[in-house]
């Protein structure tokens, strides 16, 4: 629980007893931190998300996998509004994701995101990358932000790189700084969009190690990833997306041991050898 203040948990909107939308089944409970209902998304004429329903419980670790172009990245990017969904509802921690800029800001402040290509700010040092959000968005004094950032950099194992610029770091180190940057905003949810796909093989593990530890700390995580070893070890649930819909989901034991759908079986046989 090191990534958030204790007090924040009690600030959650009370959604336990009331349905989120009047008239709908009150099956949404306080522990459902993300609720997606019938989410659709088009890029121009292209129908990329074709009705995704997914409910994520607080503290759950979910690994999303599927063929390239299946919409899995697009889907997690709709959750913090990097992509706008055009139909359906998304609720994050009881807040409905609408076009209202205040809603978007509120939701983004609950969600940290890690990208495939790191997207660190190249003109800032590792430390400044981590403190930018806390200082500018949370309005923390610099000393407090620096201290917290150093704690996080220690947590991801690279405190000695704090004053280097991203160009001076290896891919694995950059991705770990990116994770620290996301955690600095004390999110309740972390989204990982293929965090190890751009890494050289010998650096994948150092990033997965950090993610594994994060999962162990109780963070709610949605990871788009094809690291099946990681999924098997850490995921509470695996979600297979193909052609914009969730084809199958279940615990790793089921997905790896006895997948129900032919497509899941086929895809897994292609990536597991």
């Amino acid at each position: 629980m090191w990534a958030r203040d204790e007090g924040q948990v009690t600030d959650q909107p009370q959604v336990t007893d009331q349905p989120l939308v009047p008239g709908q089944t009150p099956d949404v409970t306080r522990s459902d931190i993300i609720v997606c209902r019938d989410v659709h998304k088009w890029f121009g004429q292209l129908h990329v998300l074709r009705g995704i329903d997914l409910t994520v419980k607080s503290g759950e670790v979910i690994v999303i996998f599927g063929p390239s172009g299946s919409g899995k990245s697009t889907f997690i990017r709709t959750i913090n509004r990097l992509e706008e969904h055009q139909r359906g509802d998304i609720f994050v921690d009881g807040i409905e994701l609408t076009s209202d800029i205040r809603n978007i800001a509120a939701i983004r402040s609950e969600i940290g995101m890690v990208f495939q290509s790191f997207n660190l700010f190249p003109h800032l040092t590792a430390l400044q990358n981590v403190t930018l959000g806390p200082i500018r968005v949370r309005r923390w004094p610099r000393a407090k932000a620096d201290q917290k950032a150093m704690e996080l950099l220690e947590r991801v194992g690279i405190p000695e790189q704090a004053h280097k610029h991203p160009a001076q770091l290896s891919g694995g180190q950059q991705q770990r700084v990116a994770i620290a940057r996301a955690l600095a905003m004390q999110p309740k949810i972390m989204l990982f969009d293929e965090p190890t796909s751009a890494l050289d093989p010998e650096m994948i593990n150092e990033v997965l190690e950090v993610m594994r530890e994060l999962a162990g700390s109780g963070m709610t995580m949605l990871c788009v990833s094809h690291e099946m070893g990681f999924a098997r070890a850490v995921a509470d649930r695996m979600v297979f997306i193909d052609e914009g819909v969730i084809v199958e989901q279940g615990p790793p034991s089921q997905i790896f041991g006895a997948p129900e759908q032919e497509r899941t079986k086929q895809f897994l046989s292609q990536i597991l050898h």
Partner: protein
Amino acid sequence: MSADVELRAGGLPPPPDTVGPSAWLRQNLFGSWPSTIFTVVLGALLAMLAALVIQWVLNARWGVVTDNLRLLLIGQYPFEEAWRVWLALVLLSVLAGLASAIGGGAIRTLANWLAAGQAMLGLLALGSGLGLHVAGALLVNATLVWLAFFVGLRWPVSRRHLTLATLVYVPVAVVLLQGVGGTPLSVVPTRFWGGLLLTFLLAIAGILLSFPFGVVLALGRRSNLPAIRLMSTAYIEVVRGVPLVTILFMAAIMLPLFLPGEVRIDAVVRAVGGITLFSAAYVAENVRGGLQAIPAGQLEASDAIGLNAFQRNVYVVLPQALRAVIPANVGLFISLLKDTTLVAIAGGGLLELLGIGNAVLANPQWAGARLEIYAFITVVFFVLCYAMSQASYRLEAQMGVGKR
């Protein structure tokens, strides 16, 4: 085995005929028969040209420069009030010295050139009828830059204080030069300002004002709001379609005709306004190029950590975009400096360096010294532009352009 490895680590020495000056000469100047002929012919031509130039320099009537040095430096600024100009320069020199002690290579380069430039003008003043105190003031100023530099190294001034001092300096310098009515600091109307002083003021004011305006225009052109985007685009395209001399002519001649009689805008302010409005459109296009070079992932990362649009621009987008366009912008500011000479052509009574030069030539005594005065003006502009481009190379290196 280990000796073998060691030898390989140290490497073998290069063959003797591939290094050293003689090898360089052979490779680059006398590599083949055609190359040798080219080298000899070109060398002879260059030597002849150099001889001609030196001969001209030795026989030129440099009196046109030394006798008119006061006009060339400060125009018709009253000589008994000229101490204010030197005092403004003293303050600038101290500021530059202190800044170069804590700042990077670019500021240091500019400060060095400020010192060197004042030293050169001081030496020139020594050989003219300007009086020892002017030469002394300029030479003392030059040493002040370095003195302040060493003081700043010993007792560093914080960046914040220095920025504040610079912000205070600008109005102080303007008040000092212009004076205040009813005080011992008598008013010197801007129509008396001229020469290098005016060139300097026009260029610095133009650069300082057009840069932020241009950045705002560039952001406006990429705004999500159609009205702002349209207005910015229209402004940029219209201004870029008009020659600067036209804008300066409008500012100098037409504007006063259209304004009601009681509204008078100072001629220098009008010229600065014209230069700024013109230059901002070009700054905007440069900056737009830098903005387009920012990868979409940078914007997504800013959004994801919760920065709003303003913060995203200030802390993520602009720092990267602006450093990517430093070379282009310095090039632009160098042409702005040279374009200040158009103020003399547009009329309106402002005589900057070139204008003063032309005015001097109108004096029958110096009618034949056209080449000498233009040569002097050329050298002054060259030094100013060269200093700027040197500073920009330093700035690029400092900000790590090209490495992400």
